[in-house]
């Protein structure tokens, strides 16, 4: 008996070692490309071409100067991305919450039909409408405007679905009735009583809506042609163009600058982001 136990313990030990080795290798695989990116942002092009290094060098300033001298304006891109992502996130979570509230709190004739409709709408892939959307916006003279990148967020069926599930489990209709007796209007009740209840769900969905909008390349790429309207992902796409072909240090610097805000946000919120992925995947 004792023998068997030591044997299985030794087995467990070996297993554990394998697990840690694999996990550490994978973690390194996650970090290494970004590490090289940040390190190379501080090295001169000659240094980068002479081989790999994991230690920073001293050419950060030069790389930054070269980068900014060629009409690359990360601040402008950052600002545009921030406006688009910020407003579209607000639109998405506010109107989705409102729609979800309409589905949960009121008993209207078309309620079930509307809900089924929302589920169907979720299946339309983004590219199915891209060409028509572009031509339509072109006719409205809305290309090079930030509005077509913000307003469509009002209809976000997946967020409505999530919010509805949340409201079904969290909202007690007595609270709404109490507010009515106190003379509150319906919209006032929603804004002052229901929205605060929904804050945890809103926070989760807001993170994902923000990141999705921030990382979106396709729509901004087809809609925006003026330089001063470019978002960060478009600016990244320009880094690979001819003007930077030989300036590797500056390319890495540009990449580092555009990725930095997301790294900061991720490490601040990683716990919530990971909890959110899990929640979005399996919530009953």
């Amino acid at each position, binding site marked *: 008996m004792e023998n068997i136990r030591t044997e299985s313990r030794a087995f467990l030990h070996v297993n554990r070692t394998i697990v840690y080795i694999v996990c550490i290798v994978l973690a390194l695989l*996650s970090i290494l490309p970004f590490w090289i990116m940040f390190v190379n942002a501080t090295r001169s092009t000659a240094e980068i071409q002479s*081989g*790999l290094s994991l230690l920073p060098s001293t050419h950060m300033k030069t790389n930054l100067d070269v980068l900014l001298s060629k009409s690359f304006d990360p601040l402008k891109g950052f600002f545009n991305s921030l406006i688009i992502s910020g407003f579209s996130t607000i639109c998405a979570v506010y109107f989705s919450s409102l729609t979800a509230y309409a589905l949960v709190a009121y008993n209207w004739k078309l309620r079930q039909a509307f809900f089924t409709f929302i589920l169907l709408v979720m299946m339309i892939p*983004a590219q199915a409408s891209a060409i028509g959307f572009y031509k339509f916006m072109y006719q409205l003279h809305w290309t090079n405007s930030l509005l077509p990148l913000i307003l469509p967020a009002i209809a976000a069926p997946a967020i409505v679905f999530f919010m509805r599930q949340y409201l079904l489990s969290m909202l007690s209709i007595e609270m709404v009735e109490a507010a009515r007796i106190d003379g509150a209007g319906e919209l006032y009740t929603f804004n002052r009583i229901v929205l605060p209840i929904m804050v945890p769900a809103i926070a989760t969905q807001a993170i994902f809506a923000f*990141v999705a909008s921030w990382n979106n390349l396709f729509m901004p790429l087809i809609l925006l042609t003026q330089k001063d309207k470019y978002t960060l992902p478009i600016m990244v796409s320009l880094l690979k163009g001819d003007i930077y072909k030989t300036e590797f240090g500056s390319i890495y610097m540009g990449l580092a600058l555009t990725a930095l805000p997301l790294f900061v946000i*991720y490490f601040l919120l990683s716990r919530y982001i990971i909890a959110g992925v*899990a929640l979005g995947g399996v919530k009953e």
Partner: protein
Amino acid sequence: MRRKSVSYSRFGYMFSLPFILAFLVFSFYPVLYTAVIGFTDMKGVIPKPVHMLDNPFGNFTDLIMHNTSFRISLTNTALIWILNFIPQIGLALLLTAWFTNQRLKVRGQGAFKVLLYMPNIITASTIAVLFNSLFSYPMGPVNSLFESLGWIDAPVNFLQDKTTARGIVAFIQFWMWYGNTMIILIAGVMGINPALFEAAAIDGANGWQTFMRITLPSLKTIMLYTLITSMIGGLQLFDIPQLFLFGGPDDATLTTSVFIYGQAFKGSYMFNKAAAASMIMFAIAAVLSGLLFYLMRDRDASLLKKAQKRIKKAAKAAARGL
């Protein structure tokens, strides 16, 4: 008594109105418009009178029968998806089995999860350009790494070879998404009734048996979810192939989305061809979703709804470049 019964149902309509309007204007109309453009001769930047084609399905038949690029793009999309999905689900399952194993008790799980999920959060376009620089020839970080490890004797031009270029795109997809899949699977395992695991332990099942007989069957729905999201997302693969090699070399990484973008917005302005290609893609997505719904038909309605919700999430994920 001044209380009287009031019907509040009109607020249901009122509060849904913004959603309905935004959907009709920014989604429904554009989809219809795209479908119509697919039957016309609309092309060029300067607006010209647009006519319906004499043979209304001309654009579609042209694409399917005569356009090699389009056919290559469909094959590439499928190939790159399979190359990324199989290792992705395999590794995610392995990690899930380890991280949820009660006897193994892996320490530092939280840190590992944060690090393995990290590539998913960074803009896909940044990752595409970054990998392009990492694999540069003759002197790039990957080439120098492989040389110092003694794996290769001379620098390899990874980006000019069709096989390696396609392989790298699939690898980037895998690398960006296995962490996400893992977290969803782990959450799925946590949702399994612990009594099942206790019963298995009492019956003397070992780790492998428990995983094969209890964990995997209970994860069926979650696995289907992963399959659907990944498949629809894979159909829309854009950022990575577009910015990694612009679809090259020799169309080896040309996906359907890159093809559509190229037709409509890169000099040729063939809106009709692009619209027809979008509709073909839409049809493929619908057929694949229908197929998976058929596979899930025995499940109860809530599972069906969950799946539908997930499909949309996949579409959203695709915007980030799944």
